[in-house]
Structures are given as structure tokens and as C-alpha cells.
């Protein structure tokens, strides 16, 4: 017995380890995105996020204060300041004043400037430039330092998205607009699909198998095929671009999966209950409302999560059926794309926006996740 127990525990360890490995692998990109959302664009461009969490030795180019800040002390013109001003303090080890010789001087040394005068840089980043003549030029002297700096994070990205009036107005508008798109686009297909699924699962009529096959067939049709014809159709019947159009489109694109999923679940419900009810004289509608719907709740919930996430994150369908050139309608995804700029260069905003737009779906997911697995497995395992 000891033997067997021993083998067992070894296997358990293997399972735990591989689960831990998979979870870490799965979370890795998200953690990276999260860390990046607290960094500036320049930081993201110059070093990986995994380096940002530890003190690191960095080569920096920092400008000393501009000549117009010089003060006269006796015969000398002096510029003083702190190289780490406006960033987290570090420790300078070596430094230089030429891009070709960035480590010529140790902290505390004094260097001769090319244009006359001297500069001294201390380990704590403070510096003093002295000159017998006035410093000229409009930009400060460049100092190349090699410094150990502590991790530095900023909430500026979140502030610019949520508090900056230029962005936050658009984001708030987009948030409500997205809810206006998402909620009906989740409810309508579920209602229709529940009726259809019941009919396909429990009502006897000719051609039922063919209909089910057709629904399964529709699952593989890419929605891109339908974009232009459907938009033309909307324009012909007078809906045009707008909320109604995007609700209809999401409903249409979501229905095949919804019907398929719900029908498979409902077919698995015990036949006895339904037949008993029929014997007792219940109509199909009563059976549907009083028996099937309550029993199908896990499946309904799991599909609701799917549909909600998909419509929340959708950009394509919204751009085609909702966002018109009057600029009155928008969605979160569109707003985020706009924040990225014409050439998509604002990476820091991308990471931040991802987390802000993720908040609602995550809340929905956690509120309903216990139904998700149950609903998904339903119909596949009996």
C-alpha cells in the first residue's frame, strides 16, 4: 500500500507542477502588459518590462540645465542642478560628456567642457558647471551617465486616459455607448436561441434534423462575408448605421452558436420530466417556461458570457454597422484605437487601455464563471 501511495503522490506533484507551469505561461503576457501600463513610452521602448522591477544599471543621456539658468558667483558663471530631477534618484558610477566617451570620468570627477568651463558630477546626480565666461547656447550640456536607478513606475497613463478631459469625455461616452451595444446584443440572441433550441430539441416536426444541420453549417460561415451585403440591406430597409443595425448584426452572427449550444444542452435534459408534463396537459410553451428555462440556466449563462465578451471586445462589427462618419456613435475599442494615434505608436496607452476595457468583462466573468464550465460541458458529457 505504501508503494502505491508513494507513486500517487509523485504523480500529484507532477500534476501540480504542470498546472503551475501552465498558469504562469498563461499569465505571463498579461503580467507584462500590466507592468507596461505603468511605464512611460520611452521606458517601454528602451527596456523590457521584466527589467523594470529591479534596480538596474542604465546608460542615460540627461541634459544639464539650460544656460539661461546660470548665476554669477564672484568671477564665475555657475549652473547647478540635479540630473535626476523629475525622475527617481539613482547613483552615478561613471559619466562622460561625449557620446564617444560615456565613461571617462568617475562620480565626483571634474571634466573640461569643449566650449570652455568645467563640470563636476557627484554620485547623487547633482552637478556644478563653472565658467569664467558666460555659458552660451539655448540647450543645456549633455551628460552621459551610467547610473543604478531604482524601479520607476508612473500612473500617468491611467491619469491621461481617465482624468484628462480630452480623453475621458470620449471614454465615458464610449463606455455607455458600448453598454448600449452590448446588453441588447447579448439578450436578444439568447431569447431567440432559447425558443429555437427548445423547438429543435423537443418538438417533433418534419425537417428538424435538416434545420439543425443548417445551423451547424452556419457556424463555419465567416461573418466577414456578410458585412457589405448586410449593410446594403440595412440601408435599403432604412435602418442605416446605428444601434438597431448593430444589435441585429450581433444577433445574427451570434445565433448559430447560441442555438447549437442551447439545443445540445436541452436535448440532454431528462425525457421523463417533459413527458410527464405533457401527460399532465402542459402546453409546449408551459414546458419551455416552467421546466426547460430554469433547468437550462447554466447553458444560458455560459452563452451570455461568451456573447457579452465577444460584443464587448468587438471592433469590426461596430465599425461596419454602428460607427458612421458623423462621429456621434463610438465604442470603447474604437476609442482605444483612436488613442493609439495615426501610426499606432502610443504603446503605453495600448497597455493601459487594455486594462481599463478589461475591467467590465472581468467583472461579468467572475460573477458568472461558475456557470461557464458547467454550461460548456453540458451536452458533451452525459
Amino acid at each position, binding site marked *: 500500500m505504501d508503494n502505491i501511495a508513494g507513486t500517487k503522490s509523485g504523480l500529484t506533484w507532477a500534476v501540480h507542477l504542470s498546472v503551475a507551469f501552465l498558469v504562469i505561461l498563461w499569465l505571463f503576457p498579461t503580467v507584462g502588459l500590466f507592468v507596461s501600463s505603468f511605464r512611460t513610452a520611452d521606458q517601454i521602448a528602451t527596456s523590457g518590462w521584466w527589467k523594470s522591477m529591479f534596480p538596474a544599471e542604465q546608460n542615460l543621456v540627461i541634459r544639464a540645465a539650460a544656460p539661461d539658468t546660470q548665476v554669477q558667483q564672484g568671477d564665475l558663471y555657475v549652473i547647478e542642478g540635479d540630473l535626476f530631477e523629475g525622475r527617481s534618484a539613482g547613483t552615478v558610477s561613471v559619466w562622460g560628456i561625449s557620446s564617444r566617451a560615456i565613461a571617462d570620468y568617475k562620480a565626483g570627477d571634474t571634466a573640461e567642457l569643449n566650449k570652455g568651463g568645467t563640470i563636476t558630477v557627484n554620485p547623487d546626480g547633482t552637478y556644478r558647471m563653472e565658467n569664467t565666461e558666460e555659458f552660451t547656447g539655448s540647450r543645456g550640456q549633455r551628460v*552621459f551617465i551610467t547610473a543604478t536607478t531604482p524601479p520607476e513606475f508612473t500612473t500617468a497613463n491611467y491619469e491621461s486616459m481617465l482624468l484628462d478631459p480630452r480623453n475621458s469625455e470620449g471614454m465615458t461616452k464610449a463606455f455607455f455607448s458600448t453598454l448600449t451595444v452590448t446588453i441588447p446584443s447579448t439578450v436578444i440572441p439568447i431569447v431567440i436561441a432559447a425558443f429555437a433550441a427548445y423547438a429543435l430539441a423537443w418538438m417533433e416536426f418534419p425537417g428538424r434534423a435538416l434545420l439543425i444541420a443548417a445551423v451547424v453549417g452556419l457556424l463555419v460561415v465567416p461573418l466577414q462575408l456578410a458585412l457589405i451585403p448586410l449593410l446594403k440591406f440595412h440601408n435599403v430597409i432604412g435602418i442605416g448605421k446605428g444601434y438597431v443595425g448593430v444589435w441585429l448584426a450581433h444577433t445574427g452572427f451570434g445565433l448559430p452558436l447560441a442555438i447549437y449550444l442551447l439545443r445540445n444542452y436541452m436535448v440532454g435534459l431528462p425525457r421523463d420530466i417533459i413527458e410527464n408534463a405533457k401527460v399532465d396537459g402542459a402546453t409546449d410553451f408551459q414546458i419551455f417556461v416552467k421546466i426547460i428555462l430554469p433547468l437550462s440556466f447554466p447553458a444560458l449563462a455560459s452563452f451570455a458570457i461568451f456573447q457579452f465578451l465577444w460584443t464587448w471586445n468587438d471592433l469590426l462589427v461596430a465599425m461596419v454597422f454602428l460607427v458612421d462618419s458623423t462621429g456621434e456613435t463610438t465604442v470603447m475599442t474604437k476609442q482605444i484605437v483612436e488613442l493609439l494615434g*495615426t501610426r499606432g505608436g502610443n504603446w503605453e496607452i495600448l497597455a493601459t487601455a487594455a486594462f481599463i476595457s478589461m475591467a467590465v468583462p472581468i467583472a461579468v466573468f467572475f460573477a458568472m464563471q461558475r456557470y461557464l464550465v458547467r454550461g460548456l460541458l453540458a451536452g458533451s458529457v452525459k
Partner: protein
Amino acid sequence: MKLNLLASVAGLALIAGAANAELRFAPGEGAFNWDSYEALKSVDLSGEQITVFGPWLGPDQELVDSVLEYFREATGADVRYTGSDSFEQQIVVDVEGGSAPNIAIYPQPGLAADMAGRGQLTPLPQETADWTRENYAAGQSWVDLGTYAGPGGEDEYYGFFYKVDVKSLVWYIPENFEDAGYEVPETMEDLKALTEQIVADGETPWCIGLGSGGATGWPATDWVEDMMLRTQDPATYDMWVTNDLPFNDEKVVAAIEEFGWFARNDDHVAGGAGAVASTDFRDSPKGLFSSPPQCYMHRQASFIPTFFPEGTVIGEDADFFYFPAYAEKDLGKPVLGAGTVFAITNDSPGAQELMKFLQSPIAHEVWMAQSGFLTPHKGVNTDLFGDPTLKKMNDILLNADTFRFDGSDLMPGGVGAGTFWTGMVDYAGGADAQTVADEIQNSWDALK
């Protein structure tokens, strides 16, 4: 509940609309051509909605809005600008689906030409063509670039150019050049000598990045076009763009190899030749600013300062010089550029008026006085440029002996925004220039 939501959405929209409503420069002040603004007030478009759809987002969107605001203010029209990062796909869907905006702003003339051929654009009146010929520097060439074959095959003037980019620029850090004792090269021979000298000094001369998501490869097409203009005469360039000169001609292959001289040598490029295709074009200029510098020069169009580190002052922290021409070839100073085309996709009186507004100096000056705007309009006050760099770029434009439009934008989409891009990625990755050119020519033949 839904009504509440809709009401709050509408309310927010109103607030957003109100926030825009102010003119960037007060009428009557400064050296702007305010006459053209006053003249606009005679046009009354109150209550008319004009929708404009273009590729500009973020700061660029604010800039274009600041220009349109003058039109709104003067005519009372309700002009709406919306931007999209997938403009090229979106405009096709909208127009085909029957919900076209009034005016579309094309970043590439090729797509405008396609849509004109399908009868989806409204030709501009003859006066606009005459006006462009008269008032734009090299006017006829701008008219030619905006003239496409209509649905019946006859040529008509559809596209009006507004906002131009110069592409033949090399960006560098003046202080790094100073530290190393390098001079700004005046000729291509000097530029190549400088490249070799930097290598001899143990440093890396160039930062080149071709990555751009789905459009990866386009920066290399600009290199090849610039090299075409520096090794062949403009007529040959024009023939190449229309495929009267086959893509696999030895002249084109030679231009591709000129690019290869810079990009395919491990010593010439930061990160080695292997990094060229995988580096994002937005990240590649950052090597100029690192300590120690990863590279000394970066060839890119006039928009690239957007991707420089925050706080960079152009003209002091970083500067540019004209991507020089060969002294021995006697081809003058060719300049490669690009521009955006305005075209009417859904005709209305307001749309026609807005196109007329774009011809007025004020429409150019308002953007000029801010940032990132060059114009061939001869009637504007060039003192108004927001910063001296823009003026310097405009001078490059004006001093050009030859101005040629970005060739890949003029080629059919399947080549200019397809196989030319991917071919250049293959070439940067080590493929043979002749093989790459043959493949691009094959793809072009297949489109005919």
C-alpha cells in the same frame, strides 16, 4: 433604462461637440490671410451636415479639426470628422454598403483611383483643376496625380491634394556628429564615405527598421524609390511606376542593390542586417538617442519626430539633412514625397464648398502654424510655419529639381501595398535582388 443611457450618450456627445468649438487663432490677428476667411462667410450652410472620413487620429485629428473649425464658424455647416486606423478597408465597406461619408481623405492615391474607376467618386469641377495648376508649385503634376479614369474610362480630376510629406530626409543628432567630428554630407558619395568612416571608427552608422504590422516592408520601398531617383532620370522613374519599365529591369535591380549597400551589411546597420526586417519602424529611430548611440543616421519621412523620445527639440536635439544625390550622376536634387488626397464620395453642396475651402490659404495656414504640415500652395504666408524645421523641409521641397510622388502609392494596390512590401522584406532577409524583382514583376503581370 435604455432611454436614460441614450440620453446620457447624447448629452455627452453635446459636451464633446461644444469642447471643440473654438478657433485656434483669433480671426484678424497674425499674418494669416484672413481675407479668405472673411470671404467664406458669404457662404451659408447653416444646418447642413458634412461628414469627412480620414486616416488621421489622436493629435492629427485635433489638428484637422482645428482647420475645419474655421469652416464651421464661417459657414455654419456642421462638419464632422472621424478617423480610423483601418481607413482603407473601412471606406470600401462604407461606400459599397451605401453609407459613404461626404468626403474621404485618402492616404494613398491608388485607392482613390480604384474607387473613381468604380464610379464611387464625384469628379471635381474644371475650375478646381485650373486652380491647382495655377496655385500649387508644380501644379500640373498635382493635377495629374489627382486625375483618374472614371467608370466610363475617360480621365477626370477627382482628387485634391492637401498636406504633403517629404520623404528624402536623413535624421541625425547634431551633437553626436560634433562629438565624433563628422560633417553633414552634401553628396551621396560623401554619405557613403561617412558610412564607411563611422564603421572604421568602430561604430554603427544606420538605424533601419521595416516592421509595421500588416504593412511591414514599406520603409524599404521608400529607400528604393529614393535610390531610383538618384540613379535614374525622372522619366525612367515614371515608367517604372506605370510598369512601362518592367520591375525586374536591371535599372530597378540596381536601385534595390543600392538600398542593399546600406541595409544588407552587418556593419552598416544597428543590430546587424538580420534585424532590419524585424525592427519596427516606430522603434528604429530610438537608437539615435541611446547612450552610447546605437547608430548615427536614420532615413525617414517628415512625420517621424512623433516617435522621438518625449521632449526632443527638433533642430537642436535632433535634426535632419536632405538625403543627398550622387554628384557624378548629374540628376539634380530629386525629392520623394507623399500626400493625402481629398475626394468627394457622397456629393452635396456642402461637400463642394468644403473642397473650395481647402483651396483658400487660410485652410493651409492654420495647420502650418501648428505642426507637421507642408504644402505646395504658393499663396500662403510661409512665415507662419510653427517651427523652423517645417520651413526647412518646405525649402527642401521648393529647392527640389525633381519632385516625385511615392511610387509604391501609385502602383496598383496588389504591388505597391503588397508584393513590393513583402519582396523588400525578403530582400532585407537575404534574398537575391533579381529574384525578388522577378517575383514582383510576375505579381504585377498577374494583375493586368
